[in-house]
């Protein structure tokens, strides 16, 4: 995803990175703009990694030590000088991932009504006319409306966009990568926004007439948002 729009304030620095060197002034600039705390890289204790951009949760990795596991051979140069510099023109065509804050979403827009045409023509054969019939993954369904019983209940029912997905932007990222499965990545941005509008409307998450675009998609709050928590397994005697 393009760097534009990233605000990296207040994020933990991994001490491991101190070894990475700062050959030109750019790191100094980043440091000045973004005063960072150092934490979590004590060997054995694992690293602490921010997950939510607002710092509301972070991940502790008990099984990762301060690297590298394989130090470079003695006498290695500062840089090997291998590889070719990649300019913006080389990066852009591959740099199409989309993040929860909407970074990476392209221009374009679509409504559920257009999305229904895309769905019937390009998706329904595998996911069913209403997104519930299969044969492949079921995308539509809000049941069960109360709670989040997937851990407690082996037969809580299929996990859908409506009942399990924490971020709506993941739809754009994933459909661009992998769908429709027989011609992956073949939808235009408008078609993608439209089919996402249809999927979210069928899941009763947005209204039928919403114009889906970069800002409306990033603003969608999913029913399962906030359900996801960091892995708390750490090894040791406790079974989690």
């Amino acid at each position, binding site marked *: 995803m393009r760097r534009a729009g990233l605000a990296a304030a207040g994020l933990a620095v991994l001490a491991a990175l101190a070894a990475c060197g700062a050959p030109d002034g750019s790191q100094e600039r980043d440091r000045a703009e973004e005063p960072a705390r150092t934490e979590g890289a004590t060997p054995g204790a694992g690293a602490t990694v921010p997950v939510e951009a607002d710092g509301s949760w972070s991940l502790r990795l008990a099984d990762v030590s301060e690297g590298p596991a394989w130090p470079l051979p003695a006498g290695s140069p500062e840089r090997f000088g291998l*590889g070719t510099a990649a300019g913006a023109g080389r990066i852009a065509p591959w740099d199409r991932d989309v993040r929860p804050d909407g970074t990476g979403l392209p221009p374009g827009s679509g409504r559920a009504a257009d999305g229904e045409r895309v769905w019937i023509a390009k998706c329904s054969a595998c996911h069913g006319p209403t997104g519930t019939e299969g044969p492949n993954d079921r995308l539509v369904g809000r049941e069960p409306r109360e*709670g989040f019983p997937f851990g407690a209940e082996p037969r809580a029912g299929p996990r859908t966009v409506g009942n399990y997905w924490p971020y709506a932007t993941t739809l754009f990222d994933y459909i661009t990568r992998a769908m429709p499965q027989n011609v992956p990545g073949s939808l235009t941005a408008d078609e993608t926004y439209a089919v996402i509008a249809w999927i979210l409307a069928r899941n009763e998450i947005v209204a039928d007439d919403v114009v889906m675009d970069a800002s409306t998609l990033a603003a969608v709050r999913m029913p399962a948002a906030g359900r996801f928590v960091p892995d708390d397994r750490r090894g040791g005697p406790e079974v989690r």
Partner: protein
Amino acid sequence: MDSADPPRGRLSRRAWLTTTSGVVAAGLVGTRFDAVDLSARQVPAQDPRSIPGRPPSELGSRAPGERPRRLPGPQVPSSSSRSPLHELDGIITPADLHFERHHGGVPEIRPDGYELLVHGMVDRPTVFTLSDLRRFPAVSRLAFLECSGNGNGTLRRDPSPESTPQEIDGLLSTSEWLGVPLSTLLREVGVRPTASWLLAEGGDAALLARSIPLAKGMDDALVAYGQNGEATRPEQGYPARLFLPGWEGNTNVKWLRRIEVSDRPTMTREETSRYTDPLADGTARQFSFAMDAKSIITFPSFPYALPDRGWWEVRGLAWSGRGRITRVEVSADGGRSWADARLQDPVLPKCTTRFRHLWRWNGSQAFLMSRATDETGYVQPMWDMLVGARGAGTSYHANHVRTWKVARTGEVTFAQGELA
């Protein structure tokens, strides 16, 4: 997940009782695959001492009677195949038997056109060719790779008794992985100090992508272009893949084409909709990377049978994504009493360890179990402990103790359902 459910057995159980080969079973019993070409192998060969053997060849092949096979999943097209754990001994998986799991088929990627783009919060965005990657100082290590859905079929209370170790836990393989440490590449491009995550993306039809904490990339991550001494196989990510020792298979992105250094996770479909672990309290565990300690007895197991009472070597594999295996215990009475198995060298961190235990079968019904402990002190839990800790809906990371029943007839079946 559905695609990781074990496929079911097909041949009659009589077939494997009548055969007489199989390295794993010490020449006493065979597998149902033997039944297929049984007649061919029963024709006595000419005395090999009486005629000269064939000349050397460019490419070796297995002995005609040795037919280990991967087992593709039942759906069409299948997105996984399993390693024949019960037909292998030692710790290495021959590369052509390494398990497969992919989300968009196996791509054909030409080595001369291959490029790995490293960009994002770096000082020098760079494209590396395969020759570039090979020119960096290389390292190799033995390590297991396991799909985090491996064994989730056994979480149901009634898995089929006629399940082989391949069907139960065959999404596990071990190789010598060779490549350039990712830390070396990151040093080369100059990672910005505020970076904390990477996005790793494959060049397959799914452009499979996972967010990886940068700390793992700076620790023991490899960009692996070699597998067991030769080029990484197409099914395992040719020309180069990410290899993250000890972490769930899906994060080891194959056909690696792009690494974007960043300061937050992307929240891809494979780390939200999939590969997350809902818990009984109404939350779901996310970024559950490490594979906890686990073991399985590979002999005796279905579809083998013990023809005689007496001394048998119980054999199996134990592994932990958090380090070395320090202990494997074996029980023959369904977990009432345990004895230490022998750990066979080498015992390596984040690698399968072969265990062996001499056992005298007295001819009565027995329930065989193995229980692994790793260097963090974690002990492989029983089914009810695991489900108790997470909830009955848990699916990935199903590392609870596996149980085989040896019947009085000597027939061995998977006993998860029976004991529960």
